[in-house]
């Protein structure tokens, strides 16, 4: 190495994290700020963009709506340290509350395109409180929502495979799993699949059947693979 010249090796760390319980009440920008400060506390050398107002080189997957727990949040950060995914995960998690933790981190080798854009569809779970409802009503709802979804979309049916799973702990709660909020519904009806619109639709739908939505979770993100979807791998 020549004197006076620093060769800084930059690495990109891609990571997946969750935000649950109280942390679901924090906005996307809050989460970004919290993560940036945690990176500083952990002593990572975050790379900065050049220009008038240098910004840390960090990006995140599209915002999850406020009030929704998420187990599929993604980020990519450029560091001026040569560290691997495991070390990143270990050090950053010590600086984060246990309600927001990195579950997986990977050092990217070579130049890779950001994969945030690949996210095609997210899987949401709605915990439905059916205490005041009856089983036949629930089945009616089942049929009606199916129709509603098919009617409002022109994409293949496999995306709308949804499951209703009775909860183990409480017979009053069933889980509804729905894929939605996706960029693949580009053409018409895309707005319907914006999460908040869908949430409203579902709430209205459920009202007739006297079913309330309890907790909502974003469980997983998927990428498009030909005509099918596959779980996003970091």
């Amino acid at each position, binding site marked *: 190495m020549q004197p006076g010249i620093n060769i800084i090796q930059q690495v990109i760390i891609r990571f997946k994290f969750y935000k649950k*319980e*109280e*942390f679901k*009440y*924090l*906005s996307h*920008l*809050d989460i970004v*700020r*919290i993560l*940036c*400060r*945690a*990176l*500083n*506390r952990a*002593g990572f*050398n*975050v790379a*900065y963009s050049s220009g*008038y*107002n*240098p910004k*840390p080189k960090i990006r995140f997957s599209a915002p999850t709506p*406020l*009030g929704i727990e998420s187990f599929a949040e993604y980020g990519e950060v450029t560091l*001026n340290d040569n560290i691997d995914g495991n070390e990143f995960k270990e050090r950053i998690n010590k*600086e984060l*509350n246990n*309600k927001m933790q990195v579950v997986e981190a990977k050092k990217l080798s070579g130049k890779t395109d950001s994969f945030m854009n690949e996210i095609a569809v997210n899987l949401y779970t709605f915990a439905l409180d059916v205490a005041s409802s009856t089983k036949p009503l629930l089945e009616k709802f089942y049929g009606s929502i199916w129709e509603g979804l098919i009617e409002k979309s022109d994409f293949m049916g496999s995306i709308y495979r949804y499951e209703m799973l009775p909860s183990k702990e409480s017979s009053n709660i069933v889980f509804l799993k729905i894929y939605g909020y996706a960029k693949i519904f580009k053409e018409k009806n895309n707005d319907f699949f914006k999460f908040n619109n869908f949430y409203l639709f579902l709430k209205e739908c459920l009202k007739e059947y006297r079913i309330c939505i309890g907790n909502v979770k974003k469980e997983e993100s998927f990428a498009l693979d030909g005509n099918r979807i596959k779980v996003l791998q970091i």
Partner: protein
Amino acid sequence: MKEIKILNFDMLEKLLEGIEKPGRYINTEIGVRSKNPRVEENGGFDSKILMALVFPDIYEVGMSNLGIQILYDIVNKHENFTAERVFSPWIDFEKKLREEKIKIFSLENRIFLDCFDIVGFTVQHELLYTNILNMLDLGGINIYSKQRDERSPIICAGGPAAVNPQPISKFMDFFVIGDGEEIIIHILQVLKVYKESRKEKGWFLKEISRLDGVYVPEFYKFYYYPDGRVKKIEPEKKIKKAVIKNLDEFKIVSNPVIPNIKTIHDRFIVEIMRGCSRGCRFCQAGFIYRPVRKRNVESLVRQSVEGLKNTGYDEISFLSLSSSDYGEIEQLIRDTISLYHSSQTGRLSISLPSLRLDSFNLKLMELIQTGRKTGLTFAPEAGSQRMRDIINKNIKESEMIETIKMAFNEGWEKIKLYFMIGLPFESEDDVREITELIERIIAAAREKLPRKKLSRLKINVSINAFCPKPFTPFQWISQDHPENLQMKFNYILKNVPKRYVDIKWVDPYKSMIECALSRGNEFVCDVIEYAWRGGAKFDNWSDFFNFNIWEESFKRAGLDAGFFTTAGFSEDEILPWDVIDIGVNKKFLLKEYDKSKKCAAGYKYNTAGYNKI
């Protein structure tokens, strides 16, 4: 033993549905260190004194306040005590709480306010008084000290808007005047004895009243003349302000609670100096925080960088009333930057909120500027040299214009100016000179800025109505009438070149109420109660301030707001706040007042109606 009731998470979730910025009400910040009641070491909470530190404004404002962080740190360091924070709920959440009949609770362990042993309000300005009542009420606590029994928490207040305790004296069991760092532990120790030996509240108050800085309203009696002026205060012995002599004995809070959501001042805050030696006669802080005490520069540098590392902030604010008077300010900045960069590669930005700008300090600004050169702030406060002499604002126009020219040369583009109107002995000329000063600054910009930059020049001018405050040389002065103030402002608005100037103005009726509250006596307590019952809260927020409510409330209490504002006080009368010895004696204030009168007399004096200008 009193049961400690806690709001559970399920209930919180129900409450937060549809609530704006729910992050205000959750408890997961880094740096939180109240004791956990679920951990049974040391016998859980039964053996602890529980203190609620209450900031009667919303989370984003309260979490920007250093005082709360300091007290939080001190109390929680002590094994026998635990402190939790409580902020005012925003309108939507208050509505929800009232609908669901749920009391307000602390952030950390969601303990209901009425389950604390002691509730301490920090009061930053007078327009928060109604929020105090609102929060007591939301906490299920009777607002009147006399109507609270032994089962109720002890309620106290401190902070700059409590230096005259009278207007909220009926609501508080006691007040803390001055620096809280030492006295808070003494008070809590007495409280522990009181709680464990089940003595009476009177015993507790008597014990703490021996401490410097503690004012217990029920131990004092005020006698009045029929016109409402104070005749006598009994006993005559004044309450001496609590003062810590050496700031360095108290380390800075290097592991503050780091807010999850964005706050007003979202950065690491370090107090470098307390008190101010400038002696601007209008400035209450300049008198009540005396004497000047500064922190040692080496340890400041070390602790600042330690704090930045602990918190992960990349922005630090060096707080004081006048940072240019901190002797080693340049060393502080340089050494902090270099020590920070010995271990950190990111960029550090530094803010100096009270820097008096001159050619020397402009270089400091260059040093701390990262990225684009944004705004510079000047606070000439008055337009004319005459008025700056009267208020003892030691700033010369020529010097200021020079600095501004230099700033334009160096690439700065935005200028912010602070002025006051309604200052003592103000004449038409003084007001006119505000507009002339602004014009001369624009002329300087025309001279120095290239055309392209000139076209986007914006000078932000903020005009405030002067509000005479207790413990200043202007404490006796009659406040200008709101209609007069509005006329003066209209004149300025009409006469400044609008192309380059953005002008902001505070409702003069709000200043009037602020003044009436700050110089109020114990009868103003009723006004505050009526105003609050009438719906007044968040009075400092322009959207909420409602003068009609206040007008009605004064009327209902049988008082005239003008008695505390436009009427003024005479120099030989006993003032409602004379029960407090703030450390600056009345003779000195009078001498300063006389000096300002002499300054006024030295110039042409014209107080004719402003509609004529």
